[in-house]
């Protein structure tokens, strides 16, 4: 688990993953999924969760986009923009590895 020594940028070929210490966990009390990270807890919405769940380190961003476009019955260009922005933001916070 090496830390990035330069800022990573999202591309179609990136294979995003969650680091070991960032985990998605269902909270039965609040009936919601939490993302637990160092000193932070996030409550992602359904679309964000769908992106994060696909960050398995083997699927490319292109595959994730195609998958989500089909699931949500939305144009790939729109989905691509949203997914790229989301992953760049989460990578910049070191919550996703690219």
């Amino acid at each position, binding site marked *: 688990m090496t*830390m990035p020594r330069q800022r990573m940028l999202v591309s179609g070929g990136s294979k995003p993953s969650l680091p070991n210490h960032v985990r998605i966990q269902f909270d039965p009390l609040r009936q919601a999924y939490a993302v637990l990270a*160092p000193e932070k807890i996030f409550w992602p919405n359904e679309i964000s969760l769908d992106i994060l769940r696909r960050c398995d380190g083997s699927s490319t961003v292109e595959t994730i986009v195609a998958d989500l476009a089909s699931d949500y019955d939305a144009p790939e260009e729109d989905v691509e923009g949203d997914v790229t922005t989301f992953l760049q933001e989460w990578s910049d916070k*070191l919550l996703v590895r690219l």
Partner: protein
Amino acid sequence: MSASLPPIGMLAEITHRCPLQCPYCSNPVELLKANRELDTRTWLDLFDQAADLGVLQVHLSGGEPTLRRDLEQLIAGLAARGVYTNLITAGVGIADGRIEAFAEVGLDHLQLSFQGARAETTDRIGNHGGSHEKKLETARRARAAGLPLTINAPIHRHNIEEVPEFIELALSLGAERLEIANVQYAGWALTNRDALMPDREAVDRQGEIVEAARERLTGIMNIDFVTPDYFATYPKPCMGGWARDAFMVAPDGAVLPCHAAQTIPSLAFERFGARTLAGIWNDSPAFNAFRGTDWMQEPCRSCERREIDWGGCRCQAMAIAGDAAATDPACVKSPIHARMAALIDEARHAAEGAPADVPFVHRRIGTVVDM
């Protein structure tokens, strides 16, 4: 009185014992000895009740938490409940193999403090020769064990010029987070306020340095910046609001809304064991005293920021305004906000007159402090 929500975070100060003697320690001025600490079984029971109550993250702190020989068991108990664990350590004197053992039983994250970016500063502030070198070794061992690392740098007059070096140090250790945390003046830090308070020019410079570094290090290292209250315009939402989503537990099981809550003389705190955690969180008069917004006076009561900063810090209101229900004097709207600037000036004059070699009352168990 406002209804309680389930808490998300818990700070467990499992011991007050510590090899360091930092003059701004956030432990109370009256430290508890080892014989007052909860035993393993009671902590594990408390952690179970915390998880049931909704706690998702536990910060294991002290004192120095690794002085508890049962720390591995405590981490394992939390991990078994899916609670995210963060170990807050000074990183001095941790026996071989233990960091690896913490990782093995499920520790999620390690936060390591550095009192200075230079060895001589670290050793002098903590009053412990050789501590800097030991901390470097702890950082290396944590990274080798696969643990993500936060470096915590408490900032004050005697190390504020080292902020650029702290940033380089954290990078060189492979940290993914750095906390540049300006000292909060409660407890020991309040005792040593005149010696610790930085100059305004140094605070401004620090802000610019951190801002530039954050930009430069986007996607490489996160920098959390805890700004100094005395120089602020608005107060911090202390603990995210009193009894709103987090609490802490002292070594003897006293359950507190924040670190310094015991400095508010009108409040009585309950101990885990005498009552369940849920009972204390939901019904304890001390937790309900400043929960929500109903307790507020003006100018907080009608302020549009009342649910942003929740009135700020109750302990700072107590310490400076003499009334725990007053607006935090850090707020520009506080009628005594000017007192903060006056205290900065007083500290500057005191520092100019003080001998350079003995500036602090170092924390010690049993030290008598004349407040």
